[in-house]
């Protein structure tokens, strides 16, 4: 006949404790694994950085300094032009300084890429000085145009030699340079002058 035995239920708390222990172990595992990963990542970063810094310290520190110096020259010009964008006025001191900074920036970029400038940048400096020395001279536009043409040619030569992809930018610079009318007073074509410096700034930044 029928028989139905009974038995004591197995207590559930050992399973709960076991579950908690497993969860705790998983959490600990995940935490430590993440920590390990972080350490590994740091190690990897260090391992990639150390040789580079060693390389710089041991052999190429002057070269790096040169690069930084060149970048500084270009940045100085770019910032100078950038700061002037919002200014309504344009004086000879500004044009003088802009030309000098542009010369330095072009020199810096040329040095950086190993390009030898054959043009007479000293002559451009003379044009720049002339603007500052005699602010009442009416032929400043002519000097600015000549300086701009020389510098444009230098930048075009660099572009052709090293940056073939920047033809459009050089064309814009040439156009901006051509927009400076030697026969018109500088103060009457401030925008053309500023535009030229701006285009030169854009081109130098793209020559990177």
């Amino acid at each position, binding site marked *: *006949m029928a028989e139905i035995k009974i038995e004591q239920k197995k207590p559930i708390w050992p399973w709960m404790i076991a579950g908690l222990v497993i969860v705790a172990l998983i959490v600990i595992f995940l935490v430590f694994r993440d920590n390990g990963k972080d350490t590994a990542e740091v190690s990897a970063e260090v391992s990639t950085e150390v040789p580079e810094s060693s390389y710089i310290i041991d052999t190429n520190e002057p070269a790096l300094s040169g690069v930084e110096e060149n970048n500084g020259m270009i940045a100085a010009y770019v910032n100078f032009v950038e700061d002037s964008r919002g200014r309504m006025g344009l004086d000879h001191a500004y044009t003088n300084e802009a030309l000098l900074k542009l010369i330095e920036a072009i020199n810096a970029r040329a040095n950086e890429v190993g390009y030898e400038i054959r043009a007479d940048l000293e002559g451009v400096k003379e044009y720049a000085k002339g603007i500052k020395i005699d602010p009442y001279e009416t032929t400043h536009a002519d000097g600015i145009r000549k300086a701009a043409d020389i510098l444009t040619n230098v930048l075009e030569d660099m572009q052709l030699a090293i940056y073939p992809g920047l033809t459009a930018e050089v064309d814009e610079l040439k156009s901006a340079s051509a927009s400076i009318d030697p026969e018109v007073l500088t103060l009457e074509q401030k925008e053309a002058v500023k535009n030229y410096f701006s285009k030169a700034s854009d081109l130098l930044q793209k020559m990177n």
Partner: protein
Amino acid sequence: MMTDTNKNLFNLDELSGYKVAKNYHDVRGWDVKDANDRTIGKVDHLLANKIAERVVYLDVEVDESLIEEGHNTYQASASKGVHAFLNKEGENHLIIPIGMATIDKKNKLVITNQIDSSTFAKIKRFKKGDVLVFEYELDVVRHYKGDNTIHSSNDVEGFYDREEFKNTFHEGGLEKPESR
């Protein structure tokens, strides 16, 4: 009669630390059929003995038809001078010693080949939740067996060792647990 607590008998539902053992059938909710294949009710609870660690009674909620039949039987029996219990309104539970039942696990049925519906109809029933005392158990077993001399002692000791509570009552209907 049913207010004293019998510490040897526990409703399995109330024994929170116990359950039907593995490979044994939990027959709660299964229909109960008598010797004439008539459904007399449904297993509502399992009454277990903790010391023996087994179920000793099936607590059956009987069908309304059987209750009605029992009422008529009582009226007729009383007039004939035959002993019978007088059941009150709401008393619709009875117990069956586990050894007097077989389990048809395929059809989920409990079958009592030794007891017919008229025997069930004449037995004293109780309300759901009533606490059963040993005297009641003794009366029920004696009634089912038709022998008032069964277990002359009023002590429960040894009572559940009787064949009515074992699975060896009828060899032919032995219900073996599933093989492990």
